[in-house]
């Protein structure tokens, strides 16, 4: 119970402290506008419809990119987890490509996909693909050998092995990957929007800097934060629905 109270109170206390130090001029309001003025700007911006459309654009890029990158990531990860030959072929390639900062290949992606939506989907998808692949493969490999023995012992069919043993066995890791992916996808979408888009929360942040509208920048930052929070909550809800066997704390 006390824990729950603190969970709610601690961010509110930080906001109150922020408001206070700005009002007594301990903090420069030009760089750190008081939360009250950010809230004012938030509603003004909400009414104009721009905030909603920018949030929607970013959300769309995050979700589409996650699906495009995540589905093949899980499929190839499963294959890499079980098949030693597939692992031998793919593991060095993944190890070489994964450390490249995804944002560093944005210019290349813009060259290939152009300035349209597909370049944003592509950069998000690439980042998510590697995370899901690595998490899924690790998930399959940490399945207790006893479960594979049981499957062999009862002559479980190959398709059943994938859908009823390997996939559920790796599901906890897959969901850990999904939560990581949400964070990475937002980072990549926002970063790509800085220079390569005329819409989205990243564009709003960049544009506010260029026009010195600091409050607007904060409004966008708050929305990015909320977007990540809500998507993570949805991820957790999905996990609870799909992993009912996991003992809950």
């Amino acid at each position, binding site marked *: 119970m006390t824990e729950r109270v603190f969970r709610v109170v601690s961010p509110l206390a930080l906001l109150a402290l922020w408001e206070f130090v700005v009002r007594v001029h301990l903090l420069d309001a030009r760089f750190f506008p008081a939360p009250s003025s950010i809230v004012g700007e938030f509603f003004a911006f909400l009414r104009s419809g721009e905030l909603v459309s920018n949030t929607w654009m970013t959300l769309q890029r995050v979700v589409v990119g996650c699906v495009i990158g995540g589905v093949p990531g899980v499929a190839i990860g499963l294959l890499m987890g079980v098949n030693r030959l597939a692992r031998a072929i793919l593991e060095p390639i993944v190890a070489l490509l994964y450390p490249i900062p995804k944002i560093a290949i944005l210019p290349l992606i813009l060259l290939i996909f152009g300035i349209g939506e597909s370049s944003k989907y592509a950069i998000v998808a690439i980042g998510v693909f590697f995370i899901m692949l690595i998490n899924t493969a690790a998930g399959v490999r940490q399945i207790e050998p*006893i*479960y594979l023995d*049981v499957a062999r012992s009862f002559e*479980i069919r190959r398709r*059943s092995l994938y859908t009823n043993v390997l996939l559920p066995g790796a599901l906890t890791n897959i969901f850990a990957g999904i939560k990581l992916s949400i964070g990475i996808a937002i980072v990549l979408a926002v970063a790509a929007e800085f220079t390569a888009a005329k819409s989205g929360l990243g564009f709003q942040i960049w544009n506010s800097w260029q026009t010195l509208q600091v409050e607007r920048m904060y409004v966008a930052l708050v929305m990015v934060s909320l977007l990540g929070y809500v998507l993570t909550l949805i991820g957790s809800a999905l996990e609870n629905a799909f992993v009912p*066997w996991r003992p809950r704390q």
Partner: protein
Amino acid sequence: MAALPRIAIHGLRKAFASGTVALEGIDFEVGDGEFVSIVGPSGCGKTTLLRIAAGLEKATAGSVDVNAAQNRPEALPYATVFQESSLFPWMTLRENVAFAFDRLNLDSGERSRRVTAQLDLVNLTRFEDAYPHQLSGGMKQRGAVARAFAVDPQVLFMDEPFGALDEQTRVQLAGELLALWERDRKTVLFITHSIEEALALSDRIIVMTAQPGRIREIITVPFARPRDPIELRADPEFGRLTVRIWHLLRQERAS
């Protein structure tokens, strides 16, 4: 004993890649409907022996024949009960037992009927929709036993199925296993490190020595069936045989 033994193991040898010889010169047969236990010190290769017999590992040399009918569409030739918790954590108890039928051609009504009957036999009907993490260690092993019996195998391999349980639970489960086994007397190869458990359950006990794992002696257990694994302990012969097996295992340590 039937003309053809259910399990026939001859000249079995198992060496690991490291060069360690786990099993050497293993020879024995198990007849139809016979309950045979293997006891021995840890590291004597008894689990390896069972895994080879159950087709989960390959022998380095020698022959292993399990003569169980492959052509019964409604049953598997043999089934295994493992030591650790081997129920899939992502399936309910009921789904776990039903999953054993994956290979078999059963319509869903028959499948469901067999799962229900089997869970009832091990007194787990109330827990059929529970996930393994919600069950006690004893219930999990009852579930694993139910799963193995459900596919109606001719041969059962059991690798210390009650080894991780407390003394009272394991005596209780041994009694339940005996009652279950009495119904149709399947051929059983049973690994244990408990001499009392082996005496209570078996027709014959294979005593093994370690490094490399060899058969020291095969002891015939004289008690009449059906048995009560608790009352059996009052029999003077039970004490004599316990001491005898202890001596066989102790000599091994002295040498």
